[in-house]
């Protein structure tokens, strides 16, 4: 499961967050522009996304880079879930697999004090629940959400309780009606937002809860999918495709509203594969109109080199650029909702860009994903006092051999050495 840490101020007496929708929706499915305000935090305008973090880090980004060079307003930290027993769901943690008892979740939340806590939902991923299971889903989720709401009442003086986002289950409204009634009844003062696992569940949201912010945990693997969900009235997203494209060596390259090009014969790609050797000597930024740290300080040739040389900085620079593109995309979306041009621009976006992100061609970061392999042995607290230094050995450990495919002609052309008689 998950908690949201808002980074970046206002507070009502009973609710820890204030969500104001600028346009009061008259229809069920309409894009919404809102402002989410937490006590002591910079407000976040919606629609927006929360950066998906791993151990409290947005992959590849040290905190100074994130603070100075991104507009990341909130981070999503997962404790993770998949299927469940009566009182617990299996989770993947930094320590490996284990069962998360909901009581432990409540304890963890009391310690971590995130701004937003997402209620545990009894949700199956990857396959459809059977009839018997469906009957239990609402009941279990209700027990868990109540427990969480009770656990958070128990706050110390002065510290605001985390905002609680309750799940809307990805089943029909009638199938979870008992649970939904409770959300509108006894839980109404405890619930500050809703979590959706599937955009379609928006139909299950009762009328009296429509003013609450909606966070989607659904699979949004392209900007088109985001626009579809925004059109239906989702406010906040967790987007995994940003880090995925970064790890694939792809520089995102779309904007909303889409650039107007009347001569467009074929749709524009959503991103550029930086592994392609065509960038090797290009002194242009990743995208000519981009004002991100990477594009204002570096060029494509450097990115190419870093990817080729498997240098960590390559992922850092791509991650900064890709977050910037998505930041701007959401800023554009909000503006278009406000000025009423969202639907037209959405149509034009669909026509301008390809539906899918480019295929990955290169290798990802050195160890799968952005994480190092955990070396299990516990390290000594203090390594042995400075021994005789073998810097040459250390330098060699850092050095790479020429690639086995590099033949004499390549090496000579590169200027590395010459052919000898």
């Amino acid at each position, binding site marked *: 499961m998950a908690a949201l840490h808002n980074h970046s101020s206002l507070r009502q007496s009973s609710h820890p967050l204030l969500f104001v929708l600028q346009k009061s929706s008259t229809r069920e499915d309409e894009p919404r522009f809102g402002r989410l305000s937490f006590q002591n935090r910079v407000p976040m305008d919606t629609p927006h996304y929360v950066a998906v973090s791993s151990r409290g880090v947005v992959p590849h980004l040290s905190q100074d880079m994130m603070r100075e060079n991104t507009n990341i307003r909130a981070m999503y930290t997962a404790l993770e879930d998949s299927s469940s027993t009566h009182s617990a769901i299996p989770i993947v943690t930094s320590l490996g697999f284990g069962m998360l008892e909901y009581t432990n979740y409540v304890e963890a939340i009391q310690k971590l004090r995130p701004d937003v806590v997402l209620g545990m939902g009894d949700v199956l991923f990857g396959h459809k629940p059977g009839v018997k299971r469906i009957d239990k889903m609402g009941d279990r989720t209700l027990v868990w959400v109540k427990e969480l709401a009770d656990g958070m009442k128990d706050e110390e003086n002065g510290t605001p309780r985390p905002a609680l986002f309750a799940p809307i289950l990805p089943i029909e409204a009638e199938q979870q009606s008992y649970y939904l009634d409770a959300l509108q009844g006894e839980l109404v003062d405890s619930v500050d937002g809703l979590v959706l696992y599937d955009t379609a569940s928006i139909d299950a949201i009762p009328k009296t809860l429509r003013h609450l912010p909606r966070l989607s945990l659904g699979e949004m693997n392209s900007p088109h999918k985001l626009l579809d969900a925004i059109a239906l009235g989702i406010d906040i997203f967790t987007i995994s495709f940003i880090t995925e494209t970064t790890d694939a060596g792809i520089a995102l390259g779309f904007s909303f509203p889409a650039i107007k090009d009347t001569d467009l014969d074929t749709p524009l790609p959503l991103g550029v594969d930086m592994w392609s050797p065509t960038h090797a000597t290009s002194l242009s930024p990743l995208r000519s109109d981009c004002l991100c740290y990477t594009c204002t300080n570096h060029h494509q040739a450097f990115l190419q080199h870093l990817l080729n040389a498997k*240098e960590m900085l390559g992922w850092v620079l791509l991650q900064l650029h890709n977050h910037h593109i998505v930041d701007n995309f959401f800023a554009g979306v909000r503006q278009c909702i406000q000025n009423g041009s969202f639907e037209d621009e959405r149509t034009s976006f669909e026509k301008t860009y390809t539906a899918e992100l480019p295929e990955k061609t290169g290798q990802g970061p050195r160890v799968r994903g952005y994480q190092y392999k955990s070396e299990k042995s516990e390290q000594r607290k203090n390594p042995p006092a400075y021994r005789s230094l073998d810097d040459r050995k250390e330098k060699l450990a850092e050095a790479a051999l020429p690639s086995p*495919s590099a033949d004499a002609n390549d090496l000579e052309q590169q200027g590395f050495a010459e052919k000898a008689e």
Partner: protein
Amino acid sequence: SAALKFEIVAKCSTTKARASILTLPHGPVSLPIFQPVATQASLKGLTPTQLAETGCNLCLNNTYHLGLKPGQETLEKVGGAHALQGWKGNILTDSGGFQMVSLLKLAKVTEEGVRFLSPHDGTPMLLTPEHSISLQNTIGSDIIMQLDDVIATTSPDAERMEEAMERSIRWLDRCIAAHKRPEKQNLFCIIQGGLDLEMRKVCCKEMAKRDTPGIAIGGLSGGEDKMSYCQVVSACTDLLPPNKPRYVMGVGYPEDLIVSIALGADMFDCVWPTRTARFGNAVTSTGTLNLRHASFANDTGPIDADCACTCCRPEEEGGLGITRAYIYHVASKETAGAHLLTMHNVHYLLSLMGKVRAAITEDRYPEFLRAYFRRAYGDMARVPTWALTALKEVGVDLLA
């Protein structure tokens, strides 16, 4: 020389330590200095902005690596290493010789250069002093190093050692002749001769005659005992002209740096501080701490209470206020954890160099050495013999 200005600001009245300003094409560098190693035009995930924030204005790139990737042709089109990596400070490149000899298949040193077989088809190939200089000219580094014939100092073969020393002198002459941009790039010679002080003396005299803008003491830091290391450094600095910067290659432990400075050395480089960060090790004023140890899991103190780096500085002072517990949590799991420790370790060594310069300038370097070793070891009797001996020879008796 045209591309370098070296001014001594202060000399320690007891030891051989000096504080100086080395002005290079990309700005002045205060010596003594530690140079972090950005092997492939990038320092372990740090951006050039972050590197500059550690106080660094001179870092290393590796000629061998840049020759392989992106290669001379690309470097030429891009306009050299500064343009490639967006680095506005100075760059020093090593000759890449020893990596080639150590890594390339059947690499063999001959008078012509380093012979090896291309990895793909086994074609015999040759890397010459002229090649190394041509590559470094394309890289455009502010300081370039001669190709030398390096033998492990621990090698028992005195004859081969002498051959390597003499060959390194001949290769220096070829490097000087091949160097096309002396007005923009400074070629440093590299003193060889293993642990044999007589051979080192011969090499110092011969190379000093060539009047290169700077001088490196090479072949050390290959696992030799530290007593011998100190003797070689001290013997060389006694013979080298005082008006040139002296660079001891491959040195990076804090106490090795401060002792070498007392022996008259000015510049150092080492991969250890940045490499060790990857394994969760933080260099601090009380030694190296492995922050992956469970005892740090709940330690909410900064990595080093005296450190003013971006990580250690509290949030009120514009820093990140990173705690040991946080590093424990992310070290060796998230690359960003390594970035934070790399920033800290580089900043720590550069700030140590700043304190050294201040102590030399105010002529209190012996007191600085005493305070440093007392803090690190508690009891002076626990200071390693090599350091006690080396410092005593330059007039600082830690046990007195």
